[in-house]
């Protein structure tokens, strides 16, 4: 029988762990951004491209791929900025198109925010509001969540091995 995941206060060695309450605050910030801007859609990803939240009309957009590409785009732009002595915190990249414009913004040092807007939304306003949202998002993850869950799968290494092996076998076709 599976044992429950235990609760404890723990700092993960690296990476990002979001508690349920942080997740709710993040979704509220993104909801406000979507409405106030207004944006067509917004995607928030962890800095290595793993999606945290998506809001708005995404249509047929491949979101998993988009998360990876947005993180890659930010990483490349940061590196370009470093190489050309332009690096500064709170980097903002925008891509202006004939119908829509998209922004990619650092949200603290652990997340990246992507937002797509219609061309009729004033750029200055969009820039102001995405930077404000990015600052708020960074605050949410900069404060330790306090009582958070820890990963204690309570499985022996052998059992974990078997579960992972079986899990991969079950989705694999020779």
């Amino acid at each position, binding site marked *: 029988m599976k044992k429950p*995941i235990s609760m404890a206060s723990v700092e993960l060695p690296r*990476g990002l762990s979001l508690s349920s309450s942080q997740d709710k605050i993040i979704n509220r910030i993104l909801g406000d951004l979507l409405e106030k801007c207004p944006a067509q859609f917004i995607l928030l990803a962890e800095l290595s491209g793993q999606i945290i939240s998506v809001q708005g009309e995404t249509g047929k957009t491949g979101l998993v791929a988009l998360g990876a590409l947005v993180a890659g785009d930010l990483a*490349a732009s940061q590196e370009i900025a470093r190489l050309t002595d332009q690096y500064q915190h709170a980097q903002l990249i925008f891509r202006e198109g004939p119908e829509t414009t998209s922004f990619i913004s650092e949200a603290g040092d652990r997340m990246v925010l992507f937002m797509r807007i219609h061309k009729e939304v004033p750029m200055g306003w969009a820039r102001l509001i995405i930077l404000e949202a990015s600052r708020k998002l960074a605050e949410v993850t900069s404060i330790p969540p306090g009582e958070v869950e820890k*990963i204690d799968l309570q499985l022996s290494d052998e059992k974990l091995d078997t579960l992972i092996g079986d899990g991969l076998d079950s*989705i694999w076709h020779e």
Partner: protein
Amino acid sequence: MYINWQLRELNLKIVYYGPASSGKTTNLEQIHRRVDASHRSDLVSLKTYEDRTLFFDFLQLELGKISGLTPKIHLYTVPGQVRYEEIRKLVLRGADGVVFVADSTPLRANDNIIAWHDMKSHLRSNNLSLDHTPIVLQCNKQDTLGAMALVEIKYLLHGQDLLGFPAIAVNGEGVLDTLKAITRSVITKVQHETAYA
């Protein structure tokens, strides 16, 4: 690593690293081909006009629940060509584990060594500890004439303790074994680090 407790998702990043043309992209292509479509994303490849990796290849796998958590494994490759060194460093950012894909062709011995040291240097520059980042060695192209054995490549890399697998990735041989090994190593490490923190 990113954990969302609301959704009970454990997101992990695994990077396939190695010298140019050692078979990193081939590994992801085989995984993409052999994994049920409902458990994987599309394969994203950013390639040059010569069909070589420019930035990275990317594929997400979703495993079934383990003790109530759903692991999502994000697989990336790096571009192997020498001129893309800075991009390799960027792709390694936030990696939870690495598969080093070595080319077993004897003539590529030096390329393996150079790529191995390059990887270690980039892990360090990304503040990733060499002692605590799971690394699995895959000795690919075992079907080439005079292919170096796993033990020879471990010796070359001074990695006798590395977990390693012989492979012919183009046929799918050794691809699943490698993937299982790195996934196990990463999840076991996450469990150990967090359970005893």
